[in-house]
């Protein structure tokens, strides 16, 4: 159970450690001596098949800070199971020590201090170096991209994903699946897909009118004498969680029966190894693995979890490779006669100061950035606080966005969607326009201003909470909990929909929300067509410029029980 006290203690501990350790290049130099590229890439090639998994890059082609979640609650059967384990519990579960590079990469504790010690992570030029090393061992390794690749940066927004497509093409994936890709609109997706040298898979994407498959469900590969079926599964709830008017005529869904049919089809066609390249989210994949027999490996995505070991469900292995280019998974398998006889797995952390960038890919990334460089690098202000988003409830990035919405739009209450994308910034970092776009870039950015009754706000919070905390993962629809500014509430995640959210309080007066009264609510990223307002990045930029230096106090207005 997480109490308000735990929240407070955690934030206090992190602050204290940051204050004590300070910054210093000596620490990073020490880290570089302790960590070497050879060590990170070390792998005894095994079996006859190699899979390489990367997912949820969110257009982050250069190294980033990315703080893993502090609060990531599992409900129902997933309670207490990975990936719903954070902080010390995570370290204990996987036998890792605090303060190590692994602890920095995989958990949230002492993030700012460890970030200064170990440096940024990711960068597709570093990923390219890792790919080259793996391909030197195993030239026919399969590179599989789990989607949420083309979206999430200023350059991706301005080029409708073309910058990422160009760089990814140079990395030569063998297949991909999708989610945010569709927010560029169906016409744009079709245009890019037609240009790709590899398949864009989605067994669960259907033509809504005729109820027929709309994309290739799988692709067969022959590697190391084994036939490998890679089945793709796009994010099941695209038309609900994202604006469906942007991709009219398409229907998604988990479609468990369809998955069982496709697995049977590829087995009948002689597949020795069945791999599901999935954007379901970890808990949905865990259930799917238990319900649909015959899948050997699920490469999970969407929920941004990074796990140093596979999770086994029956005979199915679930792999979680993180997000934002922080990690690449290498999975070597011994596949003989339609069976997996053994495997070797490594979640490779992409420490940007340790792994040298591939010069060709680095030049390509720079070329994509060049037309936008001035705009990207313009400093809007500075942050005194660690800015991060990831976690089930309010993070500091969204607290800043909510503060901006309340101030700039003169609202009582602000709502910011519970996205999982958006890298972090350390205390003292300048905030560039690139950083702001990394946290807000999207094709439906309008910052709306509207009135809602207390009753309506309660319905909204209950609806979103059920999409996250429904005990059956097939009924979990999307992101983390909507982040709220100007209002506090209490949530018991163990209760059913309609009864989780209580004690909604207007912070500026300390009064309980009146169900019958109307409040001015500002928010962004509405899925409704025709939403009006300035783009969210303009609202937040104005706020940051006005503040000069932004400071986000620890948020104590959400109280969580029942976990």
């Amino acid at each position, binding site marked *: 159970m997480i109490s308000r006290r735990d929240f407070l203690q955690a934030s206090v501990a992190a602050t204290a450690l940051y204050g004590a350790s300070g910054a210093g290049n000596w620490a990073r130099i020490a880290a570089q001596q302790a960590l070497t590229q050879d060590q990170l890439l070390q792998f005894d090639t095994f079996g006859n098949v190699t899979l390489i998994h990367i997912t949820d890059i969110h257009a982050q082609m250069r190294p980033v800070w990315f703080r893993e979640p502090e609060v990531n609650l599992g409900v129902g059967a997933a309670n207490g199971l990975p990936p719903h384990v954070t902080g010390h519990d995570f370290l204990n579960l996987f036998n890792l020590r605090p303060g190590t590079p692994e602890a920095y990469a995989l958990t949230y504790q002492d993030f700012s201090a460890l970030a200064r010690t170990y440096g940024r992570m990711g960068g597709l030029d570093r990923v390219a170096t890792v790919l080259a090393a793996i391909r030197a061992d195993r030239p026919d390794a399969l590179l599989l991209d789990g989607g949420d690749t083309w979206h999430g940066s200023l350059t991706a927004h301005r080029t409708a994903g073309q910058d990422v497509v160009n760089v990814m093409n140079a990395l030569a994936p063998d297949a991909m699946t999708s989610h945010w890709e569709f927010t560029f609109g169906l016409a744009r997706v079709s245009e890019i897909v037609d240009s790709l040298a590899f398949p864009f898979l989605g067994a669960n994407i259907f033509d809504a009118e005729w109820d027929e498959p709309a994309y290739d469900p799988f692709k067969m590969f022959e590697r190391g004498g084994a036939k490998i079926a890679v089945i793709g599964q796009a994010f099941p709830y695209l038309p609900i969680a994202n604006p469906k008017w942007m991709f009219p005529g398409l229907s998604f869904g988990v479609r468990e029966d369809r998955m069982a049919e496709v697995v049977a089809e590829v087995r009948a066609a002689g597949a020795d190894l069945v791999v599901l390249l999935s954007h379901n989210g970890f808990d949905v994949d865990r259930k799917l693995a238990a319900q649909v027999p015959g899948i050997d490996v699920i490469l999970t995505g969407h929920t941004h979890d990074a796990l140093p070991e596979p999770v086994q469900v029956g005979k199915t292995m679930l792999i979680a490779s993180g997000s934002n280019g922080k990690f690449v998974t290498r999975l070597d398998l011994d596949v003989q006669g339609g069976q997996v006889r053994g495997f070797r797995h490594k979640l490779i952390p992409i420490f940007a100061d340790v792994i040298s960038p591939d010069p060709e890919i680095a030049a390509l990334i720079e070329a994509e950035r060049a037309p936008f460089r001035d705009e990207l690098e313009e400093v809007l202000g500075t942050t005194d606080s660690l800015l991060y988003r990831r976690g089930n409830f309010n993070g500091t990035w969204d607290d800043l966005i909510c503060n901006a919405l309340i101030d700039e739009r003169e609202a009582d209450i602000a709502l910011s969607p519970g996205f999982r994308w958006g890298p972090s910034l350390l205390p003292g970092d300048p905030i560039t326009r690139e950083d702001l776009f990394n946290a807000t870039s999207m094709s439906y950015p309008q910052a709306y201003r509207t009135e809602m009754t207390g009753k309506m706000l309660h319905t909204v919070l209950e609806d979103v909470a059920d999409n996250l905390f429904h005990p059956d993962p097939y009924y979990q629809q999307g992101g983390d909990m909507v982040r709220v500014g100007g209002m506090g509430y209490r949530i018991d995640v163990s209760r059913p929909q*309609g009864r989780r959210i209580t004690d909604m309080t207007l912070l500026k007066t300390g009064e309980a929300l009146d169900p019958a009264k109307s409040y001015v609510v500002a928010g962004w990223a509405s899925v409704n067509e025709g939403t009006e307002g300035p783009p969210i990045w303009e609202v937040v930029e104005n706020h940051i410029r006005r503040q000069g230096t932004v400071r986000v106090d620890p948020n104590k207005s959400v109280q969580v029980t029942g976990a």
Partner: protein
Amino acid sequence: MTFTRRQAIATGTGFAVALALPLPARAALEDTIAEFTAGAAVGEGGITLTAPEIAENGNTVPVEVDAPGAVAVMLLASGNPSPDVCTFSFGSLAGAQRASTRIRLAGTQDVIAIAKMGDGSFTRTQSTVKVTIGGCGG
């Protein structure tokens, strides 16, 4: 932020949500089922209902029923103002006792299918379809 107990109780009451169906709707549902089954016992199994877990559009939710050996299948939307959606009848020459349609759902609710089998027995199944107000996909 501080709460007095009185405030907490007041907000709790104000936001209490009735989860159970309103009584008239439940009665209508039971009456409709009783009319179809003529009061006979209803078993389980032998009928499959395929519906999305979460509706992409509550105004047109695709559902399919498959009940080999059925002569009729009744489809009910338990939470709609009028729960009786339709009844499919299958003649003796029907190659399969399967039908699909699209229905409108007023909100999150159980969709129920009841089959009358060739031997006069009844069997039922149900599936919860969530209708959300949409939101924020991570």
